[in-house]
């Protein structure tokens, strides 16, 4: 266990943690944006938009993240000649993956907003985009939050797959340390604990957000 007191080991774990957090942050923002677009497109009346959204969601939900990352990292440069840095590749891959799942969360939450809300907003003369952004989405956000929290925590741990494409996030940092110190027990235990603490903080943040967004509903029922 004294290996965990070694400053080099600690700084390596800390650097890995920072990269894991950065990757999770970019991927959840990217995933949320892609998910919103895909959800709206899938609910659209335009058949082409619907088809694109369905194809995207099914493709990225239906293949393993590991295969997607390998494809983006190794195959894409050979097919297109575009070589993105490993971190960017991982952030894009995780965003695409998360977006496919988020799309269905967002679509389900939008559907859960009472249809009277949209009808009333339209009757008041709001344009379709205004109805979506100012009436439907704020209410859908509250409904979507628990599922989005799940998604975020899942993403935090899925980011460890970026290790296979040389992104030195927390897991690859640990594997590197194990390969020079031969102390797998202490190191993997420490890494597991770091992931656990991070997800725990995330679930608390989501609990606070949920509490805040529930405020109007609590006062209304009183």
């Amino acid at each position, binding site marked *: 266990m004294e290996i965990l007191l070694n400053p080099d080991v600690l700084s390596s774990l800390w650097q890995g943690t920072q990269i894991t957090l950065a990757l999770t942050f970019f991927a959840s923002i990217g995933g949320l944006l892609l998910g919103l677009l895909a959800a709206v497109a899938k609910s659209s009346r335009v058949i082409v938009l619907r088809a694109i959204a369905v194809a995207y969601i099914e493709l990225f939900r239906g293949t393993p993240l590991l295969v997607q990352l390998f494809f983006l990292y190794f195959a894409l440069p050979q097919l297109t000649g575009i070589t993105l840095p490993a971190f960017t590749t991982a952030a894009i891959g995780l965003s695409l993956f998360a977006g496919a799942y988020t799309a269905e969360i967002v679509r389900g939450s939008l559907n859960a907003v009472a249809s009277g809300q949209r009808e009333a907003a339209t009757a008041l003369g709001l344009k379709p985009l205004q109805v979506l952004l100012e009436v439907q989405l704020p209410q859908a956000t509250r409904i979507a939050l628990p599922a989005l929290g799940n998604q975020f925590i899942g993403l935090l741990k899925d980011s460890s797959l970026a290790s296979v494409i040389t992104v030195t996030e927390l897991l690859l940092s640990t594997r*590197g340390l194990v390969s020079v110190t031969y102390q797998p027990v202490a190191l993997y235990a420490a890494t597991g604990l770091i992931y656990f603490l991070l997800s725990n903080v995330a679930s608390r943040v989501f609990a606070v957000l949920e509490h805040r967004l529930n405020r109007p509903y609590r006062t209304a029922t009183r």
Partner: protein
Amino acid sequence: MSTTIKSRTIKTAALCALLLSGLAHATDLAQIKQKGVMTVAMSGEYPPFSQPSLKGGLEGFDVDVANELGKRMGVKVNVVKTEFPSIIAGIQAGIFDLAVASQGKTPERAKAVDFSDAPYYYDGVQLFAPLGSKATGLASLKGQPVGVALGTTFEATLKEKGHDKIVSYSGEQEGFLALAAGRVQAFLTEKSVGAVAIQKGVKMMPVGPVVASDATYVTFAKNSPALAAAVNKALNDMRADGTLKKISMKWVGLDLSVPSK
């Protein structure tokens, strides 16, 4: 009440201690003979030394050496494919009895496990670059990404030579893919591993002279004198009677059982 809790705690503690000591106990020859099976670790992703066999399981130089060692020591051999960086930790934990995994000797590894007295093959560390590359050696690649497999002596060599942009892959095959995808400008590995990859159609070429000579050893847990003696004897006999040379010719097409001149 308190006494039952106490005795339960003691029992649990004793059980834990027993389990831990079982795990941490180095396997020596007597235990292996008692089991009748020797568990031998290798990466399985290092052709021609270890690679998946089309008939299932693994095959290669290292597999043949492992089986021959078992035959001479009078035990069955169970070859286990495991991630290269985890092999030494597995030996320390007593999960593997031996590793015939093309491992070179480093001071760090020597602190963790014991090595056979003599290497079982002699090779060299070689830089490989894509066809048409203008690279002439490691020095010409300053500031450019050079790939290497994680936890290998090649990685240590690259760090030692002070290369400034090292990219670590989980194995040689990912490294060759990265070379083809233009992710790295060169890849450092065993000379014969690269040569076989080129024969198999990987589009790359050796660049510059051999970076360092390399020799690989059989490794096993520390404090296992009987096992060490048996492995050393079997290995010496295999070299003396030409078995090692035969295995080398079969897989590499060269005699690596003795140092090259």
